[in-house]
């Protein structure tokens, strides 16, 4: 099979930054296009990690997404598009993957939400359960870098 389109979800967490770096390396190796997506909820996190009302901070969140959370794309040498969409992470990633006819979805194993996995499943596990497309869950510890992704903006 050929992987031409990869969708990667980011949420500003360190783990999602590493997952994005992994996805960018894969996209470069396969010459695939990368679509990076952030789902805006009712609340989101800015530089200090504290939850803030998304609507009131929408512009700041979009700027953080563009310039900080997507930092691994800067020197990755890949063709990448960036999208911010309203909705829950699982719904948004599935919808974008469908629209883009993605061959692969890449997410970190645990984002900021810190959802208990044992009962309802984390975002990554829900995604894997509901997606009709291959999903790569990048575990903590994979990838380099230790710089906080909640960087200045």
């Amino acid at each position, binding site marked *: 099979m050929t992987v031409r389109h990869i969708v990667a979800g980011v949420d500003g967490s360190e783990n999602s930054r590493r997952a994005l770096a992994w996805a960018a390396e894969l996209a470069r190796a396969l010459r695939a296009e990368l679509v990076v997506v952030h789902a805006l909820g009712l609340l989101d996190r800015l530089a200090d990690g504290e*939850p803030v*009302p998304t609507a*009131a901070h929408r512009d700041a969140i979009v700027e953080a997404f563009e310039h900080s959370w997507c930092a691994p794309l800067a020197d990755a040498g890949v063709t990448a598009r960036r999208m911010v969409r*309203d*909705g*829950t992470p699982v719904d*948004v990633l599935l919808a974008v993957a469908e629209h883009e006819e993605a061959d692969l979805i890449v997410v970190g194993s645990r984002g900021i939400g810190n*959802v*208990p996995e044992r009962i*309802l499943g984390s975002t990554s596990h829900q995604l894997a359960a509901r997606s009709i497309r291959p999903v790569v869950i990048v575990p903590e510890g994979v990838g380099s870098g230790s710089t906080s992704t909640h960087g200045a903006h």
Partner: protein
Amino acid sequence: MLVVTELGDRDTHDTGGWHPERPQRLDAVHAAVHDVVDEEEIIRVEPREATIDELCRVHSMSYLRALDELCTAGGGALDPDTVVSSGSCRTARFAAGAGLAAIAALEQGQGDAAFVAVRPPGHHARADRGMGFCLINNVAVAAAALAHERERVLIVDWDVHHGNGTQDIFWNDPNVLYISTHQYPLFPGTGAPSETGGAAAPGLTINFPFPEKTCGDAFLRAFDEVICEAAEAFDPTWVLVSAGFDAHRDDPLAGLSLSAGDFALFAHRVAGLAPGPGRLAFFLEGGYDLAALRRSVAATLGAPTDRDVSTEAPTSGGPGMATVQAVKEIRREWTG
């Protein structure tokens, strides 16, 4: 007389100190009720826990079990927005049952209208999962119970966020007309005018996705040129309102420009759609600025109590008329 159902000390849904969906919201609503009516004018109805059968009309058993297990385990989060504590399940069951108790009181002729002052809110909760601060879909549980009794239910949802859960639940139900006014783009990203209902309920979902800074005049045009006509054609036997107040201009979670005075006008419109006394119930959804919430709830209660209590003038002059026109165009399929 106004039927009021409040959770009181049954509210054990702890979202943490930082969360905007917090217990103090119900204190603001409690104060608003007393801003409008004296205690002797209130029929207080104790909430009860909704039964599993009542909940399963709109939610899957597997989701209810998972939610219960999460609470038993001490809580957690369904998603980055939606927090669950050990007491959340019980509170959510009482919140759903509060609506059922209020409707039972109205059926018994105890009042002209009801206000169900509960949390967590419900309209984002889908059949198989909670989201967006919502665990159990309170208005859907009530509407499903009424539909089960062969009633025809109009749900007007004026929360600033689209009620995706309610829409999904009644997508194919010919006994429920769901109408939402909401901001777009905004969470949850659904609620386009083209979403008009499933094959078994064509035209029974109506969505008005208003742009940021929309004022009350656009909402009133939606009521006067679309909503009232659609409601009259549907001929409801009950009117339920998903009454969120986060479309108020002071709310931190959204960007519409409504005032308390606008909610007063909306409440008069929906009261006029009810087929008679005792067939109108308001369900609290969102609203996160406590002062704006208090003013807006008080203004809303002016309609069923026949009082002018609004402290803020209605608003006008913003965008949003194009949204109404777009919905009218789509509605031509059903209105000719």
